[in-house]
């Protein structure tokens, strides 16, 4: 495989490694390795030590995956890279969950051994005016992506005769075609219909960002909510811009079948685009943190708050391994992740399962209909 290609791919992997290795520093300071802790306990020597050793172990694992990727890319060709690259990333993310779990377990034991962290009361604070704020950018911005997708459909139908007799369904990283299906109206429209599906998905994500559960840090209610608004808005902007960008690129890919646009150029643009998205995500994670926890306070954070040493909202029992939220009594579907950046769903809510099934099944059905 070409050296430049494997280096480019590696370049896109590194931000993902950094994001996952640094995760303990990016979560809320009231949640450590998936376990709620008092705000003041964040600097507890034992927890500090755990963060350091997590970074060390996760880095070694990242290094191992990098070496594996480099070795494989010297032996293999572009075809293997196309399979290897996503597989190694998935391996890294899944493998890392196994690094995380012992830390979660240890954190729970540590918390159990600290009775002074617990209060007899379990107080929940909410701001009644939170949702009067503008939390995300408008879903109307997706009109642009929808319009582009519909134009792609129209152009495909008008230019049907100009399409090649074999419609490509898979490309490698050089923009060379790996697999094709015979031209029919169905197969020709696969890509634009996928565009509509993806636009709907981005619209859905933006709605999740808006509706996800409000989380007040009781030691600094006002500033924590302000930071949370910034957090939501930044990721909303990220979703709208990159979602629309991806739709534009897919349109180019479709157009390249009808008019002579350099396919390599489109493939190159796609790689550059992915690189920008990943670096942007890393930058947002670093500067904003989970829930806005890394943002500087507009007023100074009150660490000496009278309740800074106790946990207020302790819902650990609803968090399986600190990863999956299952709470049948909670009517909310979306909630901030504990160990990670972004949101997750309440598996105790039936709507969760329906949404999950729809997102998974639609592309599978689409592809089956074509083939």
């Amino acid at each position, binding site marked *: 495989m070409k050296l430049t290609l494997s280096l480019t791919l590696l370049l896109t992997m590194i931000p993902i490694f950094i994001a996952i290795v640094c995760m303990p520093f990016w979560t809320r300071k009231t949640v450590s390795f998936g376990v709620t802790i008092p705000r003041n306990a964040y600097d507890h020597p034992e927890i500090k030590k755990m963060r350091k050793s997590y970074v060390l172990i996760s880095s070694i694992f990242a290094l191992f995956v990098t070496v594996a990727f480099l070795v494989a890319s010297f032996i293999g060709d572009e075809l293997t890279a196309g399979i290897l690259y996503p597989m190694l990333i998935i391996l890294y993310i899944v493998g890392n969950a196994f690094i995380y779990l012992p830390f979660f377990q240890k954190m729970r034991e540590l918390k159990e051994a600290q009775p002074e962290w617990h209060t*007899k*009361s*379990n*107080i*929940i*604070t*909410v*701001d*009644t*005016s*939170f*949702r*009067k*704020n503008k939390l995300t950018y408008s879903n109307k911005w997706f009109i642009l992506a929808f319009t582009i997708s519909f134009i792609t459909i129209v152009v495909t139908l008008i230019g049907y005769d100009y399409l090649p007799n074999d419609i490509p369904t898979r490309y490698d990283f050089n923009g060379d075609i790996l697999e094709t299906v015979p031209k029919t109206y169905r197969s020709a429209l696969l890509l634009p219909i996928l565009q509509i599906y993806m636009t709907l998905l981005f619209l859905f994500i933006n709605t999740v960002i808006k*509706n996800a*559960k*409000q989380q*007040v840090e009781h030691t600094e*209610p*006002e500033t924590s909510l302000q930071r949370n608004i910034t957090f939501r808005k930044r990721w909303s902007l990220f979703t709208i811009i990159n979602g629309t960008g991806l739709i534009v690129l897919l349109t180019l890919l479709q157009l390249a079948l009808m008019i002579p646009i350099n396919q390599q150029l489109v493939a190159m643009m796609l790689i550059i685009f992915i690189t920008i998205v990943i670096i942007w995500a890393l930058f947002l994670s670093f500067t904003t943190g989970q829930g806005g926890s890394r943002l500087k306070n507009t007023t100074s954070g009150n660490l000496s708050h009278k309740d800074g040493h106790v946990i207020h909202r302790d*819902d650990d029992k609803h968090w399986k391994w600190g990863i999956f939220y299952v*709470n049948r*009594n*909670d*009517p*909310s579907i979306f909630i901030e992740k504990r160990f990670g950046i972004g949101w997750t769903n309440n598996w105790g809510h039936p709507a969760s399962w329906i949404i999950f099934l729809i997102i998974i099944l639609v592309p599978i059905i689409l592809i089956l209909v074509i083939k």
Partner: protein
Amino acid sequence: MTDMLIQLDMESKEPLYTQLRNQIVEGIASYQLKPGDALPSVRTLAQDIGINLHTVNKAYKQLEQEGFLIIQRQKGALIHPGGVPKADDRYLHELTNVLKPIIAEAKCRGIAYEQFTTICQEIYLSLHKKGDNTS
């Protein structure tokens, strides 16, 4: 923008809807919630707190009955724009009935008349303070 923080104790013996009702009444008394202010919808508030929709609905319904809220189909729950109905004879009678056992218990436990009125004063004045800087 109003900034009313509601605090509920999940372990308390007092039912959640009563706690919620009392918190909103306190918010109105201290001018943190002003006439005409919109409250979150039942669903949104239930989701943000993480409790059953019926609990929030029960609190809102009670507040509506007592004249603190009006619930409109389109705008949702609003703090009564015309203000809370003024105390009448019936309310005064009710207030006396509610206070009597509380005062009786305090007296049994040796709380002097002056001490009791001081506590009442402090609570009453604390409700004034909160809204003063925003209004």
